[in-house]
């Protein structure tokens, strides 16, 4: 998601011009935001020429200025991102031939193995899901193609992603950044002093690791994509001439700060905002096991609020059980139901708190499958639905329903039942030509079901996600 596809780079030339025009018409963003100089409207050809020029000029240009005082760090993220994306676009067109050569053997390999899997998995799900890549088994962590190129920590994390032992937008994102920190420690820049360590680091370390995780282990989530883009920008904006030791400290500091500011501080802020919405005697409903909600509820309990929590849960992950264990430990009185009983308990509930994997810019909430059902039922009974989500999970894409973009989980998870009467009835489902099992991982909650989204910058209506996205990255907005 974060890797801007090179093919898309030339296309939006016309759009970019339009965007500039509208930018001028819109109200001025706050003064502490750094806005790049406005570009004149260009034709496609002119833009190409300009790109060439910039590329030539860039060789000498230094990417300084990106690492200023800590306070400005946040606001500059946007600018960096844009700059980085330009760089990425440029370098991808410049290195087009090179990278193609580099990637060719690898990509042909992956597509071949992908086809094999597909033929094996053929027709194992409904035709309308044919565009989603099939669930694949764990990669072999000892395969030489990985062990020779990737850091062991990267492979280990990949296995944890694939097996599901690390799950949830925040946990996956944080562990990715932590592994990068570890990898930076062990990284040695190329001997050849004329080559740029930044692109070496990017192409030889960051990209292959991310590709390994996303193609071989598990599809990345929006939070990972955003954080990876941030990493690449941080690397790209290092000082080319500084020593690696020095650059490493800056880099590690940047990533540490991302985790601290975008996750920890954001969590605290969300908890503070959300706690104002919990009153004594409230009966709260939540679904699954969201990190933000867990922190919120346990903190609210510590602050002395007295409330009751219903945890709705569903197959096949039963993540709500972990939530239940955490809330039990915190001494919160709770109830636990599966989704079928939700209608029954709904009349007792007066607030719903839900977590999210990502926020789409049309205000839709991309969350664990089942979230939409909960939000729909609550909305039907006129119970307020509040979604807690940090801003680093905002995606610049839109999604109207759950099928266009999703992730398929292991279908066998549906064939095993957690003990009970029908225990083994689907166990040999692969033998039947007509029987299919579908295990979707996410769903999209339409913005109409959501009363408010609690972010670290405040509680906003779902219609304002696009505004927030724009305020945070003024240059990236599509209009």
């Amino acid at each position: 998601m974060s890797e801007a596809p090179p093919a898309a780079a030339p296309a939006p030339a016309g759009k970019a011009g339009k965007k500039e025009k509208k930018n001028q018409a819109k109200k001025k963003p706050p003064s502490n935001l750094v806005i790049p100089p406005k570009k004149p409207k260009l034709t496609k050809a002119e833009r190409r020429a300009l790109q060439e020029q910039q590329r030539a000029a860039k060789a000498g240009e230094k990417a300084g200025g990106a690492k200023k005082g800590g306070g400005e760090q946040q606001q500059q993220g946007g600018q960096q991102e844009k700059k980085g994306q330009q760089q990425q676009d440029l370098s991808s067109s410049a290195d087009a031939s090179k990278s193609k050569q580099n990637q060719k053997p690898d990509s042909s390999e992956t597509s071949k193995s992908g086809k094999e899997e597909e033929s094996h998995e053929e027709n194992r799900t409904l035709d309308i899901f044919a565009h989603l890549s099939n669930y694949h088994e764990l990669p072999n962590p000892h395969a030489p193609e990985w062990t020779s190129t990737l850091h062991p920590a990267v492979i280990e994390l990949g296995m944890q992603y694939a097996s599901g032992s690390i799950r949830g937008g925040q946990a996956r994102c944080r562990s990715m950044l932590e592994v990068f920190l570890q990898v930076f420690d062990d990284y040695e820049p190329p001997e050849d002093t004329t080559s740029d360590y930044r692109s070496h680091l990017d192409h030889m370390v960051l990209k292959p690791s991310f590709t390994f995780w996303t193609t071989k282990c598990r599809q990345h989530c929006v939070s990972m994509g955003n954080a990876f883009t941030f990493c690449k920008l941080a690397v790209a904006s290092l000082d080319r001439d500084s020593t690696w030791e020095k650059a490493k400290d800056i880099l590690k500091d940047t990533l540490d700060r991302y985790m601290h500011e975008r996750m920890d501080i954001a969590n605290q802020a969300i908890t503070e905002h959300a706690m104002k919405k919990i009153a004594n005697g409230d009966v709260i409903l939540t679904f699954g096991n969201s990190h933000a909600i867990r922190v919120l509820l346990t903190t609210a309990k510590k602050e002395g609020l007295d409330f009751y929590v219903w945890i709705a849960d569903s197959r096949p992950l039963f993540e709500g059980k972990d939530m239940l264990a955490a809330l039990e430990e915190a001494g919160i009185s709770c109830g636990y139901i599966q989704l079928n009983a939700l209608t029954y308990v709904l009349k007792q509930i007066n607030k719903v708190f839900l977590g999210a994997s990502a926020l789409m810019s049309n205000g839709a909430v991309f969350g664990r499958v089942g979230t939409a059902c909960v939000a729909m039922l609550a909305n039907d009974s006129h119970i307020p639905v509040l979604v807690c989500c940090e801003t680093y999970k905002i995606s610049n894409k839109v999604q109207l329903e759950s099928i266009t973009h999703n992730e398929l989980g292991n279908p066998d998870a549906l064939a095993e039942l957690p003990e009970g009467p029908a225990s083994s009835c689907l166990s040999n489902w692969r033998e039947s030509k007509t029987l299919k099992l579908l295990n979707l991982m996410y769903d999209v909650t339409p913005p109409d079901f959501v009363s408010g989204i609690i972010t670290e910058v405040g509680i906003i209506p779902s219609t304002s996600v696009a505004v927030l996205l724009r305020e945070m990255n003024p240059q990236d907005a599509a209009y």
Partner: protein
Amino acid sequence: MLSDPLAVRPWLFKNHPKQLALLDKFEVELKLGRLSGVSSEPGAKGESLKSIDRRTVAFRTVEILKTMIGSTRWQTPAHLVALLRGLGRELHSAGGFREPAIGNVVRRIIAAVREEAVMEAITEFTSDLEDLHKNINDQATDHIHAGEIVLTYGRSKTVESFLKAAADKRLKFTVVVCESAPKYEGSEMAKSLADCGIDTCVIPDSAIFCIMARVNKVLLPAHAVLANGGLIAPSGSNMVVLSASQNSVPVICLTGMFKLTPIFPHEGQDTLNDMLCPSSVVSMHDKKLTLNNVDLVNPIYDYVRPELINLYVTNVGSFQPSYIYRLLAEYYHNDDWSSFE
């Protein structure tokens, strides 16, 4: 002579001990839940889930009523009505509250007594029950067409045979079956449909909203159809139906007329509802959980509002929910609407 419904048991005890023994036997079965799929007997659960046909209980009720009418010494129709009411009370308290069909059968036969056509009514009712699936299945082609994606929830004999009948007409369609936690009867339903060559896909209940965007029709079974046109259906059905209405997908309920119950849903979700053992919701052996201070809820049914249902397909034709009240007037006498409590 018998005039008070409450006096039925002493009256039978005094005059007809043999018939009372039959009644007692049936009541024991009802109390154990053997006929309604909520058996509390250890080991019987799996068995009863697989073979449950809701018509059984209706057949058995007709049988016992027929015996009572035919072989006890009642003298006037008024006596007979009192006897039947008394029997209705007896059966209701023995477990009939779990199975509204029992009360419906009694009501229908009382209505026949009032029209002085009891035996004809009993024969007609029995043959209605026997032809029930055939009459519903005849309408399959009216509702399912080739290439459709049909969603259904849990397991039901009526829905299963309806879909198989549609497949027999050489229609090629796909069925999405929700597994209906925590009993997972949907898995069995899917297996059975797939074995008949129908393209079947099992989804967890959490994916209902996702998939609804691609579904053409929802088929639901019924536990009872209420006087306002509302539906009592397996718990989780409300989520299905609401998702369908959000996506403008038509919802069709397949039901026999014997499930038409003359009560209104004054108790909301508690109407005709019951709770099951929570052990299927969460395993008591889960080491991570202490479950000391946790409420677990496991209802059997959901009440679904009439405006969320598009059509009832029954053995006597298809009706929209707003027409149900008219059918009630046809089947039961106004004076018999009251519950047998």
